C-alpha cells in the first residue's frame, strides 16, 4: 500500500485545486446552484474534457486516462473541498463505474460519450424499499419497457442518459438498463434537496423504453456501492478539510475580549479534535481507494472510509458553524453550504452506524 502521494499525484491534486479555486469559487457556485440545470456546463466540460478528468480510471480504449481509482479520489477530494457543483460525481464517477462494472460491449458503448463529456449521465438505483441492496428493488422490465419508481437520483432531471437497475425476466434476474433522458414514459420530478449543490430527482417510469446493457446481481451491486462509498469518502475528506481551514482562518481574525478567538483554548481544542478526526478519515479514504480490486478487503475498507468520513465531515461542518458564532448561522455566510453537503453525504450510501455494522460483518463477526 502507498501511504504518500507520488509526484504526479501531487501535481494532479494541485492542478485541480487551482482550477477550482480560480474558476469555480463559492461565489460562482452560489450563482449556478439556483440556475437550470443547476450547474455550469462549460466548467464541467473544462474539467472533464479539457483537463482530461472525464474518465480518470476508465481504460484508454474507452477514452479514459487509464489511471487508478486513487487518482479519481484525489480529484474528488479537491471537488469536495471547493464544493464543486456539477454532474462530475454522478456522471463521471457513478455512471462510469456502473458501465465499467456492467462490463459488456453494450454497456461500454456509452463510456466514450461520458468520458469526453458529450453527454451527462446518472444512475437510478435507490428505491424507497431498496436502499443499499437489490432484494427490495421493485422496478421491473418486460419486453424492453420499465415500470417503477426511483428516488434520490443525482442530477436526474438534467441528465442526458439515465442508467437504471431493474428486475427482469426470468424471475430473480436483474439488469442494468439505459434510458434516454427524454424517453417516453419517463417522468422526472425535481425534488428540493437539502444540499443546494446537488440536484435530486424522483423518477417515475411507466412503460419507459429502455436498452438492456448488462446483467446485474448482488455481487456487482456490492462492487458498485463500495466504489461509490470510497469516492464519496474522499470527497467528504476534502469538504471536512475546508471546514477546518475556514474555522482556522476566521478564528485568527475574529477578536473578542481583546484577543483573537483562536488564542482561546476552547477554540484550539475544537480545532485539534477536528484535525484528528479528519486525518483518521483521510487515512481511511486514501487507503480504501487502493483496495478497489481486492475482492476480499474492498467492502471492509469502503465501510471504514465512509463511516470515518461521514463523522469527520459532519463534525467539522458543525464545529465550523459554532466557531463562526452568529455569523455562521446566516445565509450569507458560506458555511451552511458545506454543512448541507455534509449532512446529505452523511446519509447517502448509508450512515456511519450502518457502515460500522457492515464493517464488523466484513470481518466475519
Amino acid at each position: 500500500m502507498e501511504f504518500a502521494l507520488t509526484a504526479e499525484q501531487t501535481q494532479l491534486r494541485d492542478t485541480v485545486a487551482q482550477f477550482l479555486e480560480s474558476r469555480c469559487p463559492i461565489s460562482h457556485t452560489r450563482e449556478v446552484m439556483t440556475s437550470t440545470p443547476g450547474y455550469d456546463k462549460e466548467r464541467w466540460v473544462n474539467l472533464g474534457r479539457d483537463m482530461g478528468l472525464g474518465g480518470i480510471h476508465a481504460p484508454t480504449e474507452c477514452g479514459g486516462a487509464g489511471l487508478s481509482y486513487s487518482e479519481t479520489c484525489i480529484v474528488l477530494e479537491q471537488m469536495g473541498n471547493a464544493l464543486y457543483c456539477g454532474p462530475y460525481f454522478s456522471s463521471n464517477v457513478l455512471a462510469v463505474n456502473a458501465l465499467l462494472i456492467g462490463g459488456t460491449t453494450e454497456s461500454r458503448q456509452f463510456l466514450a460519450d461520458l468520458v469526453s463529456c458529450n453527454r451527462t449521465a446518472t444512475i437510478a438505483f435507490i428505491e424507497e424499499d431498496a436502499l443499499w441492496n437489490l432484494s427490495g428493488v421493485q422496478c421491473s422490465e418486460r419486453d424492453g419497457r420499465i415500470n417503477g419508481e426511483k428516488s434520490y437520483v443525482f442530477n436526474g432531471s438534467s441528465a442526458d442518459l439515465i442508467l437504471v437497475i431493474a428486475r427482469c425476466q426470468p424471475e430473480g434476474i436483474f439488469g442494468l438498463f439505459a434510458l434516454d433522458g427524454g424517453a417516453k414514459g419517463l417522468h422526472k420530478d425535481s425534488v428540493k434537496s437539502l444540499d443546494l449543490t446537488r440536484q435530486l430527482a424522483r423518477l417515475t417510469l411507466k412503460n419507459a423504453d429502455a436498452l438492456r446493457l448488462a446483467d446485474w446481481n448482488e455481487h456487482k451491486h456490492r462492487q458498485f456501492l463500495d466504489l461509490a462509498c470510497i469516492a464519496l469518502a474522499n470527497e467528504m475528506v476534502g469538504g471536512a478539510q475546508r471546514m477546518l481551514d475556514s474555522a482556522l482562518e476566521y478564528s485568527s481574525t475574529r477578536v473578542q475580549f481583546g484577543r483573537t478567538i483562536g488564542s482561546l483554548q476552547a477554540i484550539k481544542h475544537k480545532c485539534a479534535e477536528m484535525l484528528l478526526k479528519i486525518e483518521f478519515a483521510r487515512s481511511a479514504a486514501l487507503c480504501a481507494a487502493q483496495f478497489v480490486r481486492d475482492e476480499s478487503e474492498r467492502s471492509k475498507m469502503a465501510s471504514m472510509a465512509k463511516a470515518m468520513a461521514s463523522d469527520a465531515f459532519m463534525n467539522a461542518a458543525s464545529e465550523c458553524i459554532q466557531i463562526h458564532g452568529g455569523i455562521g448561522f446566516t445565509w450569507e455566510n458560506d458555511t451552511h453550504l458545506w454543512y448541507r453537503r455534509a449532512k446529505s453525504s452523511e446519509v447517502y450510501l448509508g450512515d456511519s452506524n450502518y457502515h460500522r455494522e457492515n464493517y464488523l460483518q466484513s470481518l466475519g463477526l
Partner: protein
Amino acid sequence: MQWTEARVRQEVRTWLGENWDPNARLIEWRNKLMDSGWGMPAWPTHWFGKDMPDGLIPTVQEEFARVNAVGVARTGIRLWAAETLLAHGNDEQRERFLRKILTGEEIWCQLFSEPGSGSDLAGVTTRAERKGQEWIVNGQKVWTTSAHHADYGLLLARTNWDVPKHQGMTYFVVDMKQEGVEVRPLKQMNGHASFNQVFFTDARIPLNNRIDEEGNGWRVAMTTLMHERRAANALAGQSRSKTPEGTIYEEERCENTVLSEPYTWYPQRAGRVDLAIDRAAATKTLDNPVVRQELAQLLMMSQCSEWTALRARAAREKGQPQGPEGSLGKLANSYIARQALRVHTITTGLGSMLEGEDAPMEGLIAEILLSVPAISIAGGTDEIQKNIIAERVLGMEKEPRLDGGPFREVRKN
C-alpha cells in the same frame, strides 16, 4: 569512507561472526559493544560510535536480530540519558558516565516533574544553591520511575529566581545513593507503585556534575524529552518472541525483570485493543447492537491511527514536508484507549464491579478500567497536546501568558 547499506551489513556480519557469543557474560559483551562502536553506531567514532547515518541503523539492528545478539542496555531512561550527556556533557562527564549507562552497570532516573509543576514543567521550584565547591539541593520531585534502584538522576533545578522562568534552571547529574536523597514509592489508583517521590534535603552535587551552562537547564531538558519521545516511537517491535539458548539471555532477563516491572501495566493503560473482539465473543455480547457499534468504532480508530502513523513515515521517507499527521499519535492513543475502555465495560457488564483474582480475566479487565485514565495525563495531558497541535501544527495564536518577568514574582502553587 562512506557508509552504504551493503558495507554496513557486511561489516556488522563479520564482526558479529567473530565476536558474538551467547554464553558470554552480559557486561563483558556490552563493553565489547562500546569499544567496537557497534552498540551505538550513530554516535561519533571517538564516543563509542561509528558515525553512521540514522537511516542505516535498522540494517545494524536487523543483523543483530538475525543472530539474536544482545544490544546495549535500553531499560528505563538509559537511551535518553545517554543522548543528553553526549549532546550537552563535557568530555570528562561523557568519559565518566556514558559507558556504564549503556552496559547496564549503573541505573538512572529522571527528576523533572514536581508536585507543583506538571504540565508547566518550567515552573520547577526544587532549588540548587552553590556553596563553595558543591551545589546544595532542596525540594521534591515526583513521578520518578526506578528512583529506588537508581545510581544517578538527571535533575532539573532552579538556580536563579530573579530571571524569567525558562532562564533560571540548571541541569545536573545527582548521586542518588547519598544522605539527603529520600525515595518513597507513590501508589497509584490502579494499585501499582511504579513511580516514586524523591525528597532532597541538603543533597550535594559536586561542581563538575553540572551539565552545560548554568541557566541552560531548560534547553538540556528539551533534548532529554525529545529523545524520550523518539524512543517511545521506536519501542514497537523490539521484543524477542522466544528466548534462544545461551547464558547471556538469562542475565538479560534478570535485568529486564527488575527494571521493566514498573511498565507491566502500560499495555492496560493503552486499553488492550487486542482483547476487544475475543472479549465480545467470550461475553456473548457480539449480538448486542451497541457493543457492535462501539467495537467497530474502536477497531476502525485503531486501524486509522496505524495508517496515519505510516503516512507520516512515508512522507518523511519521501522527503515531503511534515504534515499534521505526525503530531497526532499521542492524542490518538488517548482516544483509542478511552474507546477500548468503553468496549471492555459494556462487554464485561457487572463484572466491571470486581477487582482482583476473582474478577474477569483474573483482574485484567479491572486493571484496564483503572489504568486508562493515566494515558491522557502521562507525558503531557491531552489538553496540552491539543494546545501544541493547535499552535505548532495549525498555526493558531499563542495564549497570552501571565508568567513573564522574574520567576520570584510569578504566581505558583
